[in-house]
């Protein structure tokens, strides 16, 4: 007893070193360009994906892992460490069937392992941070309930903002949620987006131009955290220079304890489009 393993999926955008050091298992989603199919983070990396995206005439499609993909991972963990328990944390069910696949896989395991599947109601590192928190608790030898609780605590404290270059990707991929009213704006409006409590994309504010939008995100985080130490993750879809610029602004206005960069992976990238910037902020 006492052995808790953490499983997430490839949309969590947890950098490789962290995944490895925390022993987090990742079940990949899939991405298709026409007839070509790739396994997220396995047969295609973010850099290649954005190159292909730029060259492709049509938008890629994505698909959730099959239940069997999950069963394989759960079996492997159970074989490695008999008696272990699994916390499986996944991309919000509002965006993807990944969570459903994991639930099905759990039932297919027929009690061969104790699996706790969590719908993150979040995406990208919003989900990733939950997995990381749970994994840290697991590494510290905490029981399953406390690992689950650690993930929930992070969810409660997490502040997510993201900016897309264009709303087209969110719209065409059907994930635009409550920001749909912003489509077709006559003015070049840069909505400040978030994932709301219902796990949907929503616009919290409209800004004119991306610089103003970034400045407003910094202001919102300042209002929220004041001098409190914070941990930040800045994620980007093939936009490293903007991400670094954004990070500088965040650092100059917030008491930043830790800051980490990550790439938005192919599946998330296919739905938000290149140029997207995101910040995930939590009290340290």
């Amino acid at each position, binding site marked *: 007893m006492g052995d808790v393993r953490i499983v997430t999926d490839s949309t969590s955008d947890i950098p490789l070193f962290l995944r490895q050091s925390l022993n987090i298992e990742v079940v990949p989603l899939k991405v298709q360009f026409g007839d070509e199919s790739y396994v997220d983070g396995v047969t295609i990396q973010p850099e290649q994906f954005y190159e292909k995206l730029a060259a492709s005439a049509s938008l890629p499609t994505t698909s959730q892992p099959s239940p069997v993909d999950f069963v394989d991972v759960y079996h492997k963990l159970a074989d490695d460490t008999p008696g272990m328990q699994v916390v499986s944390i996944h991309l919000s069910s509002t965006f993807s069937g990944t969570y459903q696949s994991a639930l099905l896989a759990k039932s297919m395991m027929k009690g061969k392992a104790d699996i706790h599947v969590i719908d993150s109601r979040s995406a990208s590192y919003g989900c990733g941070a939950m997995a990381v928190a749970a994994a840290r608790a697991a590494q510290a030898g905490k029981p399953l309930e406390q690992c689950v609780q650690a993930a929930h605590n992070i969810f409660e404290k997490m502040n997510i903002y993201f900016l897309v270059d264009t709303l087209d990707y969110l719209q065409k991929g059907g994930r635009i949620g409550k920001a749909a009213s912003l489509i077709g704006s006559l003015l070049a409006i840069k909505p400040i987006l978030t994932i709301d409590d219902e796990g949907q994309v929503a616009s919290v504010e409209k800004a004119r131009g991306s610089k*103003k939008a970034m400045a407003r995100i910094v202001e919102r985080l300042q209002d929220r955290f004041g001098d409190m130490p914070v941990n930040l993750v800045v994620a980007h879809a093939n936009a490293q220079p903007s991400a670094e610029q954004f990070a500088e602004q965040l650092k100059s206005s917030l008491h930043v304890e830790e800051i980490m960069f990550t790439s938005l992976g192919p599946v998330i990238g296919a739905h938000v489009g290149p140029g997207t910037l995101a910040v995930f902020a939590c009290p340290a």
Partner: protein
Amino acid sequence: MSKRFNLLNGRHLAELAAAGLWNLERQASAVNQLNVFPVPDGDTGTNMRMTLAAGVKELLRKPDVHFGAAAAAMADGMLLGARGNSGVILSQLFSGFADYSRDLETLNGGQLAEALQRGVEKAYQTVVKPVEGTILTVARMAAERGNQAPDGSLPIEVMEEVIRAAAEALKDTPNQLPILKKAGVVDAGGQGLLYVYEGFMRALRGEQEKSVESDKFSESMVAVEGADPTLNDTPPGHHPVQALISADQIQYGYCTEFIIKLTPGKKKPFDQDELRNTLSALGDSLLVAGSNDKVKVHVHAELPGDAMNAAMVYGDLIHIKIENMREQHARITEAAAVEDSAVEPGAPEQEGEPKPCGIAAVAAGDGLREAFLQQGVDVVIFGGQTMNPSAQDIADAVNRVRAHTVFVLPNNDNVIMAARQAAGLVKDKRVETIPSGTIPQGFAAVLAYQADLPAEANLGAMNKAIRGVRSGQITRAVRNSSIDDVNVRQGDYIGIADKKLVAAETELADACRGLLKHMLADGGDLVGIYCGEGATGEATDAMRQWLADNYADLELDIFTGGQPVYSYIISVE
């Protein structure tokens, strides 16, 4: 009314007001031309005239021999009909005047002076930051002098002092406001007020038309005795006020208004004198005014078709409006006719549970209107430069918004006071005027607005947002001028950045670049360009290119606003 009259009653007030309106109306275009910038925005005279007309209309609707009751009716009408800052101040002057005389059956000379003084006090209270060298100063100096008249002075004697002081104060306005001196003009609002007072004087002297018969006023208000017929310099055929009081005396039956969209090359080159001559043979109350591409025509004619035919040789006619003045003789001027039309069609009264907050915004131009609606504005009030909506127009729009708190975006400096006045006219909801003086400020406010936030938070955010944007405008000079060290020739394209003239060029693209250069001198991340009716692809491309060459990091938002008057509105933030 001769000097023998030492007490004024409600009927006399009607006569004074009508004469004041008549005098202001015939001088309105002169007042319009007293413009600091040589831009086609000279509407002070028009605004004051329409404001006073709304008062006279209400006074005729509720005639009363009791002075206080008549004054109250007139003041009510003016408060509703007020447009433009000078119009709002004029309405407040009369509102204070009416407050003082509320319970007075008649008014003697001393009381007339007191009433004027009360009006001045009320107007000063209304203006957030009173500026000397404006209509306020002229009204104040005039009232002060009126109160210095010896005890027992007759109304006419008080008025003589008032006019003398008003004229002196007006002459001094350029010494108080440097911008007037630079432009070489006196204050337009002050001039308008003096014309109103002079109209009063004409009535007191009996210089008006001598036999005013009215279906509402059976008794002649003008004392025939003692009046010198040679003093009657009323232009032949031009009696808009009394013509409307008495329908069967109307010589020219149709108030005809339209705008000629000049199309040089296709039609005959525009010749203002020629058109004036043709039209003056057809009627009276003639006004021909405009810019290089549009000419506004107003004429009272018996054969409006002939007037339009005469104008159509120069271009297409738009915004045609013809009113039968005999049918609608209760209307005082054409001002009344447009009173109901400012709220854009397609904005029916909203239904359902009131929202916490809503917005009414003032704008002209299809693109601007659409963009405001798209960004969450509930009702767009048609208006802007050269077409200021009245307090009533704004109040009507606010009443259509089903919300507990309605924010009003005037989007023009000259509409802000009317918006504030409108706020006081709406009883069942909270109305907050965001002092947006330009279209870019209006958009900045709308983008800061969040429907799900409480009113207080939105109020703060919107007020903050309007300070974060710089506004520029491109239009054409309507006369030669030298201001802010820039020499301007009539027809030049001029650039105005936040109330300062910064560019004057013969080529549109040059003026645009000059304006952008000035506006970007203090930095900026985003340039918004709102193309108006006079915009050209060439000038738009020139700006795009110039910005790319000089400010590669800038974000650029080019958008078809479709606004009249300004070829381009530019925002920098």
